[in-house]
């Protein structure tokens, strides 16, 4: 439950309660402006009734808005990309402000993204990147039917918090096949062992 409205450039002044969280990256202004200048109709904000920003997201999947069921705070930045059987929905980021966690928001948001990628964009799969160290998130995605497709070396800049080492800067590329891929060709069982460098993915 929240107010769902379009994301505006000036929302960058308000997203600190979401972005100060360790798992949420604050990108340069160009990042947000580039999403807004391409898919403004797919960028939205979730606000608590008090006006406090709970989450924002962009995703190029148009009908996000027709089914406003994801009425919770999350951040999703997504796009549709790839050619042929690689055509898929990509979740660039998904995060929930700490105070609005455990409300089932992430799951709802992902359901929606999958629905849209499946029915509207006719993608073969949905994929997302997550820090190898973010165990909580990985488990959550696995619970939703995602599996690791490959490990991407040094995808994230160093977190600088010590012990985690590789796990903190490497990412798992996690995928979930959609109805167009009934034979599950877009996933594989040994994904954790498939290592690629950050240059090989874009």
């Amino acid at each position, binding site marked *: 439950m929240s107010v769902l409205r*379009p994301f505006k450039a000036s929302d960058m002044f308000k997203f600190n309660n979401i972005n*100060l969280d360790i798992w949420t990256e604050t990108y340069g202004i160009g990042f947000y402006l580039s999403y807004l200048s391409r898919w403004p109709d797919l960028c939205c904000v979730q606000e608590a009734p008090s006006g406090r920003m709970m989450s924002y997201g962009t995703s190029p999947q148009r009908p996000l808005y027709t089914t406003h069921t994801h009425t919770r705070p999350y951040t999703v930045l997504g796009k549709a990309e790839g050619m042929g059987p690689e055509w898929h929905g990509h979740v660039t980021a998904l995060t929930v402000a700490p105070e609005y966690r455990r409300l089932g928001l992430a799951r709802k948001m992902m359901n929606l993204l999958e629905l849209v990628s499946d029915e509207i964009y006719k993608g073969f799969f949905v994929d997302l990147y997550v820090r190898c160290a973010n165990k909580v998130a990985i488990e959550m995605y696995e619970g939703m039917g995602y599996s690791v497709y490959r490990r991407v070396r040094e995808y994230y800049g160093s977190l600088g918090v010590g012990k985690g080492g590789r796990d903190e800067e490497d990412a798992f590329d996690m995928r979930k096949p959609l109805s167009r891929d009934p034979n599950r060709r877009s996933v594989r069982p040994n994904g954790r062992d498939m290592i690629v460098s950050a240059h090989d993915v874009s």
Partner: protein
Amino acid sequence: MSTAALERQIRPIYDALDTGSNKSALVTCNKLLKKYPRNELIKALKALALVRSQKVEEALILCDEVLEVKPTSDATLTAMMHVLRGLGRHKDMVKMFEEAYKQQPLNEELGAQTFFANVRAGQWKSAQLVATRMNKQFQDDRYLYWTIICTVLQAEEPGTQPEMRNILYRLAQRLMVSSPTPSYINAERFHLHLSILLKLNLVDDAHKLLDSQVGKNICATNLSCNELRREVWKLKGLVKEEGEQAKNLITEKNDRNWLEFLSLLDGTFVELTGGEVAPSEEALEAARTNVQETKELLLRVVEKDGPKDRSGLLALLELEKRTRVHGLSDDKTRLVCLLKEYFEKIGDKACCYEDLKPYIELGSDELAQWTSFLDAVSTSFSTGKELRRLINVYKLQRYNLSEITLEAETTRATLYTEKYIEALKLGVDLPTTELQPADDLVLLAASSYVSLWKLTNDDGYLYTATALLEYALTKSKQSFLTRLMLIRIYRLLGAPAQALEHYRALPIKQVQNDTLSHFVLSRSSTFSLAATGDLTFATECLESTQIYLSNSQETGDFIIRAFTSEKYSQIPEFIIFEDRLENSLQRDLVKMEHLRMRLAHENMNSDIIDMELIELKFIFDRVHHDNRDTAILSDYQPRSSPNFNEQTLLFNTFEGFGFLRTMLKVYIRALQQGSDLDDTVEEKLLIGDRPKQRVDLASGVTLRDRLIVQPEEDLEELTQDEALLVEFASALADWLEVYHDYTRPPPAIVLAEASKQTELKTGHPLKGIEITSANGNGHKKDEESPAFVEPPEVVTSFFEDIKARFDEVKDANSPVEALHLAAVAQEAFLILIIETLRFKNQTVVKQNKLGTLVASIKTIRTNAISNLKDISTDLVKRGESEGTSEARKAFVEECSGIINAGIDHDFVLNIAKKETDARKKVLEGFGKGINRICANYTSS
């Protein structure tokens, strides 16, 4: 030689520029220019290399040469675009592309570039003309829409008069109608069309547009258009219809957007919103029926959603609240019942407190019921859910406390602390990257200690709060809320190094530098040791301002991208964003802090004075926006008390527009008197474009008029001692003005000197300056030198007064007040130096017969130095006392409460050591810094 061969030779220049090897680019350019001395592309590239090597004067000469020949080649234009951007000459860029487009009117790309150059310069009127021309020439609807949005943007410029604005909107509307394709073929064009109709208040037309099938489809899939639709429906009085639509979305489509619930509720009370004092019985009856229906609908939602979604439950609360407002409620117990139900179902979620806040401002009977309900909730917990429930109870109880008493608050602080320690058990197995479920308890405890400090003025409570919060950070390393509280408290305690350490541990990047740097940079010159050569804070200031550079370099590109991708809804938003960041209050507050640090660090000379003067004058003309985020701080204080943010502001005040205005006036006035640059000289020496002129200033008001007024409400944002400083600076400027004006060399001489300097540097004199019979300083004066007047008392007694104020506070518990006084005294002294630098030159003094004045200034300076030295000695002494084991012991003793609660004594001792060391460092450093400044300016 063939073009291909030339291209091959030019290639390495591009490579060098791309890799940032400007030097090697220059060498290649020079080599090639020997062979092809008239090649415009090589010249343009050389200019670019020069700009990038900060050799602006030389770049300017080449730049003008290239512009002279009116280039049209793509490569030259592109290179020049970068040169001109680097120089901030957007207007010249417009001219360059216009010339090129004029020569090749069939070149669509050049047309677009001309258009974009205008967009970059914010010249909407000329952009509109270019787009119109392009539309005629190239027959593309996109250019028509560019024309339309530029017309709208022109209307929205702050300087546009209301009548003109309307004319422009009507023009935009006519153009829209003239389009060969309807606006609804794409949502962005549709959005633009709707927004123009709304501006013209053509609600019926807008409604008609929306009422079509296409219109409905667009609104169903586009939030921005739907936002406008809501507005149109509201303006058209379609509240009932909106409510019906919302009802459908909620029940049929399971829409849980809170906006739909609000629409549903608005529709419920539509009969009563006509504004009549006494609504008719019919209306009341209709409303009662509606309320009943809505209630039933919401109950069904609650039943269907269960605990998965809280919309229905919250909407029931909102319904009850509004029912009461309209006097329709017949059940006095219902609100509390709903609150209880909400708590029972949602009480174990973190959001419960924020959700309920708007509904718990209750009358005494209901408050008693609600409180006793909360009091009865069990305070034991063994699961995360139970813990969150308890935390919500504490927060909700605290919110309604009517007053804070020492005894009860002490009990609460202890309770929160004990529960916190107990609750840590629930999170022992969490990875270090996770937040502890107990965190909110420690935030509550710290809030409580801060309240106790406010109540008693006893810093011991702040020591306890810091030790406790530091402990919490060892358990929950990523808790940014804990860090933000610590930053505030360390500053109150005069331990800036600790505050900075925590600030740096936060992942603050990019635009967050604008919204959050106030946490550590607000009045940071009070803590800066720049005078001793320690540039920590000065560097922090500079780093935080990188984002403004990115904004000016990048945002414009995205505005252009929004034009090319026809995202009309975004263009005004991007412009607003760019403007808010460009003219950010925080940006210029940091600038002021940095200026103060710079003046303390560097030796005063005319270059500093001139440069800073020009920059501050630009800033003075900005219309600022406050983007600072203070809402990010947790606030769990009772509603009867000031919030945590207000409680923990340094010196109980937060610098705002008034503070900035006042300080700018003080410095501009002082620098202007100290400088030889008058407006005519400044105009000639300026390289980039001037910022747009402010339109809200009455004509005929001079800069000086604006500088000498200090409105009362502006001064209220200053501390008592800063106000004294302003008084001192104004009196000093008033006193010295006539001598400055008499002594300042005439513009022609200043320009001749500047030209000479440029020639020495670049081999060319300054352009556009005719050197007349400049003969150094030996100009003749027509008038007698002004008679000596005694300095005003405000000036002569200032340093003694400040020293006396300093003595009052120097032994206070926290050293921040003493530091503040010392900083004010130091600043006043530096302003004195700016104001009197001119009179240090013996020749000037002799020529202008200012001997008596100089003697008088010297007396003031000697007196200032003697007082400053006393302050310096006291600060150093105080610093020494901070670094002792007694100081640490005293700190630890104050924290006995939390040590008893189970926090390790040695841990607290370590915090004590860090805190007292930080204090020692800043006190000693600042003291020594003052001493150094004194020594610097004692010699003459």
